[in-house]
């Protein structure tokens, strides 16, 4: 899973070294890592609905890896942006405060950080499952902010960001439907 997940980064590095990223390689690398981050995040959100709809168990097993890879690519995306700003932290800070497009992207990354930090089994134990679950609901907000960041970042043609936003909305709706369907049933006393 991780080997597959790191492949795009390796290809990107190879392309960068061999000059295959075109006339503005830094811009291309920023776009590709950002796109990978949001797609992987959406895939991680699709795991549970997929498991419930099909009864398969493998989606649950790859969910954590997808989430961590999404965070990894988001961090790489931010890192390339930092590098592109000549690591002028003042300019970066101003960008984050002044430009909503950058603000939401940065917030999405910030929200993902604690989720990546607490992705271990030990963290689940330490926090308790219920608190851990509540914390990890932040992923929905992060995904929504990420999708908005992408949508705002495009100059004119919004086909891909719109498709991604629609996918995210679909996944959220699925969860709401599931929750509504669950309500009349008696709540299980134990969590898990």
């Amino acid at each position, binding site marked *: 899973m991780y080997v597959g997940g790191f492949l795009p980064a390796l290809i990107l590095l190879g392309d960068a070294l061999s000059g295959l990223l075109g006339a503005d390689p830094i811009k291309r690398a920023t776009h590709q890592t950002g796109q990978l981050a949001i797609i992987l995040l959406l895939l991680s959100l699709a795991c549970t609905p997929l498991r419930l709809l099909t009864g398969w168990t493998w989606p649950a097993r790859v969910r954590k890896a997808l989430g961590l890879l999404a965070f990894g690519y988001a961090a790489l995306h931010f890192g390339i942006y930092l590098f592109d700003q000549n690591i002028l932290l003042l300019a970066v800070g101003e*960008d984050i405060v002044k430009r909503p497009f950058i603000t939401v992207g940065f917030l999405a990354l910030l929200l993902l950080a604690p989720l990546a930090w607490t992705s271990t089994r030990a963290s689940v134990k330490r926090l308790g499952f219920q608190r851990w679950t509540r914390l990890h609901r932040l992923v929905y907000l992060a995904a929504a902010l990420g999708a908005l960041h992408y949508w705002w970042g495009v100059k004119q043609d919004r086909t891909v960001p719109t498709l991604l936003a629609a996918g995210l909305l679909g996944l959220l709706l699925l969860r709401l439907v599931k929750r509504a369907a669950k309500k009349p049933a008696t709540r299980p006393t134990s969590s898990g």
Partner: protein
Amino acid sequence: AVTRKRALGPYDTSEPVTSYQAMTTYNNFYEFGLGKDDPSRNAGSLRTRPWTIKIDGEVRRPQTVDIDTLQSWFPLEDRVYRMRCVEAWSMVMPWMGFPLAALIRRLEPTGKAKYVKFTTLQDPKQMPGQRSGVLDWPYVEALRLDEALHPLAFMAVGLDGKILPNQNGAPLRLVIPWKYGFKNIKSIVRISLVSERPKTTWALAAPDEYGFYANVNPAVDHPRWSQATERRIGEVARRKTLPFNGYADAVAGLYKGLDLRRNF
């Protein structure tokens, strides 16, 4: 690219010219697709001969003229200009063509002429990108008459000593080096002298992001990104963007008394 030795003129920059490969494969020309490499792949479908340009509006000599005839009216000149895209990247491009002022004077504008309006070809068969509704076709750009008469304002028919490649706006395009690249309308089929300010394509598409003037200005940010710096294509570190793209001495006078923050 072939190195052509010649003395630099008063309007030329001595900065190193961008690679011909980059100039002809990294293009914004939405009539051929939205990707930077789409125009070089798709613009083969554009037929640039025969090609006529309709000249109308507030001129004493309205006419429809063939591109080869129009080109023969003026001696061709070289100009090495900086080009700054609104997306915060830039190039140094060696154009060949003639001053826009020479063309306008020949057309004899009437006293009512205040703006020059340019229109790109509209033909989805030759320009497949026009099948999408991403912009209102045909592409329209315009200049104030005094801007158009400025000696830096240029009509290009060639690039780096060669005939203009289709993806760069063949057979005739505008080059206004102190404005963002999108003002430099390509593949022009109509030039009209008009009394009212024309509605221009990007200003219509996103009025809060792209203004009529579009003068390069590091102090006025695009709502979604900073215009303070730019990447010169071929370089890694960003460089500072200069007011009027480094041509302030020549053109700032055109905008005396104009609030550049509001008239961006």
